[in-house]
């Protein structure tokens, strides 16, 4: 990628090596299950930025969606003697063993959306139920409480299960809203596969009004669905989703985009917050072990005429990208000392 | 074997194959190329099944469905194409013991035992110098053949078929082979011996059976017949007449080759070809004839020496350069190298000179058709139409197409590599006529072949090749089959005298 115009170089960290702060020069490993799509890329950026600000180094372990490789990567990170391990997605069956080993060795572990259940691990999760409720409420409001909806969802991931709970409750409480189709699969190429499937659904329900809205439990799903709808030329279907990367934001801002709303935590923020909790653990602090990240609701109607990126989103959507979650006094001092 | 018939698609290989072999006898099987010798033997060794006729072994009618079955009955074959029966990656020992692996028996294999048994077999053949542990692809053609014979020995065969075993062998190697065959005979093993070399047939065989055009013509007792009788039975009269016509040549030099060497097969080759002359190049299989033809044609590269055509130096990096300079090659492996057998005659005929049959980028299909029709007529090619794929043509007619495709180019020199291989007698005559006609127009011809009698018949001058060198030049008048064979297997006349002398003591 090229250097953007007027891009401010990330503030170079001075003197990390000479710094006397015991927290500088830490090695952090980031173990990811899947690393495709803009969400992941932004999340990695958040991690890198925050670790750099703390004077440490990050190693990213990619697993191509392969859980066995993810478990091996976790082992490799432990063997390399890193100070902290950040985990992004994965399942408890695959990871618990490795995480236990890491805790035994005194490595700080912070997991995001991973379903890991081990004593001493800080677990971050997005307010999944809350996000689902926010978007579903908006859907109901736009549809006046009645309509046929398509659900795109996949089982097998802890956050997805939580979103499903909220969705099931919502359907029960709103008999006017019916699910006419449900599908979804997390593949190596989720957005494109979803697009193909959505095209199938659209052909199945070719008439205006057959489908009121699509609810996508993950932004990769939403992307595929939105593209399929846009290309079919249908204007009667709206899309509501959870999670939002910058790419999604651009699509939401397209003229006549069917994408009506999303609820999400800024992916960059997730990365930053995860690093902060890891450093708290390194520093011997005792943070809560179950952290819920506050979701933000992004309404397409609130966005300005000209396009903005997630970097500027905070000007229009309250609370976006400005989270201070996870800072402790020691960390603030560390960051100050390295500037 | 009696009344054996075999067809391959539209080709009839055998019409009436008859053959009787007695225990402990060496029985030679003779016949021109394509007479059906190999096919008959492949039927006997279970590779092909006959369409009709029966095989009687030890008084019982047998039905040979596979080589395995034939081997169980003690019938082994040393194939003409040795490479079909050798596994190059495996060691010499493994290749010798190859047939044991498919038989039920021990699950595990001991290498030590394997090597020991293989060595024993090789020693029997007086070839103990071949290391049994080296992979088979390192061997020479002659050594590979020994492996196949050793394979038959290991299994105490009752009947061994030798299909042209001496073609790649030098005189010394042949002598050794003959003593092995004699040993076998003394052990009551029946041997069938196929060869084109009459002197050695007369030296080794007890009886001779001759085949022509898929049928057995006659069986002689070796001691009661002469070479001429056999040849007559093999070839028929017309063919011989055709070959004895002599042709006058001019002396203006067309092609001049000086000191040609590659680092591999060819060594210091020099010769000339005059306008209107047919020069024969003769040598054993593997002598380097094909190599030489392909090197002249730019398919292989040489690193020393020079080639002049019509006074101009030819430096062909690719056959396209050679074609531009005025050469044409009719390669040995017609189906593999010379023709596109699944394409039509028309497509084949125009291919070397597409420019002539196209307008700008686009093909001119009418001109193509006209040309194809013209060569069908002038070369008397028998075909349904010019759109018929070549697979449906007979070998001889295919060969005519392989020659005819150069007719649009006005080449100055034609290289024929074994142009009569697998071609029936009638077509052979046509092809010889064609070569004559080409030379009569003032073009030069180089005729590469291992068929000594054919070479003698067609050539104005004969070059003998041995091991990548030209070892002797004969004029048409001086050449005899014996002298040529002697030089072709690395001997010289003086040496030969001495050897004869030694023998008599």
């Amino acid at each position, binding site marked *: *990628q*090229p*250097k*953007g*115009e*007027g*891009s*401010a*170089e990330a503030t170079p960290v001075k003197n990390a090596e000479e710094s006397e702060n015991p927290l500088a020069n830490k090695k952090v490993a980031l173990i990811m299950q899947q*690393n*495709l*799509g803009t969400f*992941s*890329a932004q999340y*990695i950026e958040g991690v890198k930025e925050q670790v750099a600000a703390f004077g440490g180094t990050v190693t990213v372990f990619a697993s191509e969606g392969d859980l066995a490789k993810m478990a091996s990567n976790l082992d490799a990170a432990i063997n390399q003697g890193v100070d902290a391990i950040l985990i992004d997605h994965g399942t408890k069956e695959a990871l618990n063993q490795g995480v236990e080993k890491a805790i035994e060795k005194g490595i700080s572990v912070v997991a995001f959306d991973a379903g890991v259940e081990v004593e001493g691990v800080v677990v971050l999760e997005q307010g999944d139920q809350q996000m689902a409720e926010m978007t579903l409420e908006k859907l109901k409001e736009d549809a006046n409480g009645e309509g046929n909806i398509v659900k795109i969802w996949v089982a097998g991931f802890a956050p997805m299960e939580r979103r499903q709970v909220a969705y099931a409750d919502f359907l029960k409480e709103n008999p006017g809203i019916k699910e006419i189709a449900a*599908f979804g*699969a997390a593949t*190596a*190429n989720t*957005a*494109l*596969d979803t697009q193909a499937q959505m095209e*199938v659904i659209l*052909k*199945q329900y070719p008439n205006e009004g057959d489908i009121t809205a699509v609810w996508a439990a993950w932004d990769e799903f939403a992307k595929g669905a939105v593209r399929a709808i846009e*290309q079919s030329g249908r204007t009667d279907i709206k899309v509501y989703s959870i999670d939002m990367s*910058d*790419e999604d934001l*651009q*699509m939401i801002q397209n003229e006549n985009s069917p994408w009506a709303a999303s609820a999400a935590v800024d992916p960059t923020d997730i990365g930053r917050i995860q690093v902060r909790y890891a450093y708290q653990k390194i520093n011997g602090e005792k943070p809560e072990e179950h952290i819920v990240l506050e979701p933000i609701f992004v309404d397409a109607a609130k966005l300005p005429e000209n*396009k903005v*990126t*997630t*970097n500027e989103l905070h000007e229009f959507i309250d609370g976006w990208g400005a989270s201070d979650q996870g800072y402790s006094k020691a960390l603030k001092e560390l960051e100050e000392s390295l500037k | 074997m009696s009344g054996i018939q075999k067809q391959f*698609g539209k080709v009839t290989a055998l019409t009436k194959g008859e053959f009787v072999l007695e225990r402990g006898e060496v029985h030679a099987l003779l016949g021109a190329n394509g007479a059906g010798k190999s096919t008959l033997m492949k039927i006997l060794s279970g590779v092909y099944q006959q369409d009709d006729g029966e095989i009687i072994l030890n008084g019982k009618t047998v039905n040979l469905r596979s080589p395995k079955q034939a081997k169980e009955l003690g019938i082994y074959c040393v194939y003409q194409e040795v490479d079909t029966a050798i596994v190059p990656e495996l060691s010499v020992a493994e290749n010798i013991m190859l047939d044991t692996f498919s038989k039920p028996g021990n699950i595990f294999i001991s290498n030590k035992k394997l090597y020991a048994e293989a060595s024993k077999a090789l020693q029997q053949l007086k070839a103990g110098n071949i290391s049994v542990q080296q992979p088979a692809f390192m061997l020479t053609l002659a050594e590979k053949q020994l492996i196949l014979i050793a394979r038959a020995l290991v299994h105490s065969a009752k009947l061994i078929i030798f299909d042209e075993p001496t073609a790649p062998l030098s005189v010394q190697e042949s002598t050794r082979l003959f003593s092995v065959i004699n040993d076998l005979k003394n052990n009551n093993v029946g041997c069938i011996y196929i060869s084109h070399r009459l002197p050695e047939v007369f030296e080794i065989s007890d009886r001779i059976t001759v085949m022509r055009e898929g049928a057995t013509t006659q069986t002689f007792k070796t001691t009661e017949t002469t070479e001429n009788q056999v040849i007559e039975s093999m070839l028929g009269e017309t063919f011989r007449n055709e070959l004895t016509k002599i042709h006058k040549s001019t002396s203006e030099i067309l092609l001049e080759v000086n000191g040609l060497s590659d680092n591999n097969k060819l060594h210091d080759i020099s010769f000339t070809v005059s306008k209107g002359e047919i020069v024969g190049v003769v040598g054993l299989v593997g002598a380097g004839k094909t190599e030489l033809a392909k090197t002249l044609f730019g*398919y292989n590269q040489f690193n020393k020496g020079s080639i002049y055509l019509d006074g101009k130096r030819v430096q062909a990096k*690719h*056959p*396209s350069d050679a*074609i531009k300079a005025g050469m044409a*090659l009719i*390669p040995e*492996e017609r189906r*593999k*190298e*010379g*023709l*596109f057998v*699944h*394409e039509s005659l028309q497509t084949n005929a125009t*291919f*070397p000179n*597409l420019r002539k049959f*196209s307008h700008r*980028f*686009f*093909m001119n299909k009418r001109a193509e058709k006209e040309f194809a029709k013209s060569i069908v007529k002038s070369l008397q090619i028998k075909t349904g139409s010019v759109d018929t*794929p070549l*697979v*449906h043509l007979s070998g001889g007619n295919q060969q005519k197409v392989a020659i005819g495709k150069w007719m649009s180019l006005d080449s100055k020199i034609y290289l024929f590599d074994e142009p009569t291989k697998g071609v029936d007698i009638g077509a052979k005559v046509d092809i010889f006529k064609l070569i004559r006609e080409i030379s009569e127009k003032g073009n030069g011809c180089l005729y590469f072949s291992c068929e000594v009698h054919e070479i003698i018949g067609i050539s104005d001058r004969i070059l003998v090749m041995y091991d990548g060198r030209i070892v002797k030049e004969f004029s048409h008048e001086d050449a005899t089959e014996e002298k040529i064979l002697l030089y072709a297997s690395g001997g010289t006349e003086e040496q030969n005298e001495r050897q004869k002398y030694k023998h008599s003591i």
Partner: protein
Amino acid sequence: MKDKSINILFKYGTIVLMIAIIIYFSFISDAFLTYNNFSDILRSISIVTLLALGVTFTLVVNGFDLSVGSTMSLSTVITASLMVWYDLPLWLVLILPILVGVLVGMFNTLLIVVIGIPDLLATLSTMYIVAGLHRTYTEGYSIYNNMPLVSGGTAPGELSQAFLWIGQGKMLGLPVPVWIMLVMVFLTYLVLNHTRWGRVLYMTGGNAEAATLSGVNVKKVKFSAYVISGVFASMAGILFTARVGSGQIDAGAPLLMEAVAAVFVGYSVLGAGKPNAIGTFFGAAVIGILLNGLTILNLPYYAFDIIKGAVLVSALAVTYVHAKNRFSAG
């Protein structure tokens, strides 16, 4: 008897199959046999057809290009990046990805012709390497209008309307991608069937050895086929970007099988018995129509892979059984 029926199957199988599918589906759904649906089907196969044309060229010379999918992915992200990151003029945006396709073709040629790795293995490796390259190039991001850059700031450019017209516009009642496809099919047909060079390509594929001895530089011919394949893959990538309006990662990978299947289904159209442009187009159309119809039948999406695979296997089976028979008859 059996041979004859295989021969007929071979010659008219594809076309009969296509007609049967069309008749069947038009009974089932009124929406099927409409101008709009067919123009949609044509548009949906346009990208695959371009890829398949490239594969056709490599098959004609008896090679095989498995790297077209990756090459298309690479071209997709490069096309988008040229506009989004570097804000280059349209003509450069159209030319540079094509050059990248040429490079991939040259790399394939290097492996196959110079080093001597068998075609399928060589292009399989290239497939992986190019897939890695295209991810490295974007650092894992998809490329879209005004995206923020890793180094800070936002990207200067966006996909222009003129560019998007290539993928989304209409001309004389047909979508632009359909026009592009038809033109390319026709050009390929012309080149392969009616030019000198087409003849050389087919002959090289039929018997490389004989072609060499007839004065054809087989290496150059193979080179040209692989380069053309790369160029077609790049064009498919450009078309994909214009169609989707952004540079998605891994866009081409799923299309590889469809493209290969199209070529093999097309092998036999009207008894050509060899890879050919019209056949490839029909092959892509049969698959496109089949998939369109199957969605009407309401088959789950994951079953589609099985059906695509089955179509590929049937096409291969008919092709090779026919080849066997023809050979043994000769």
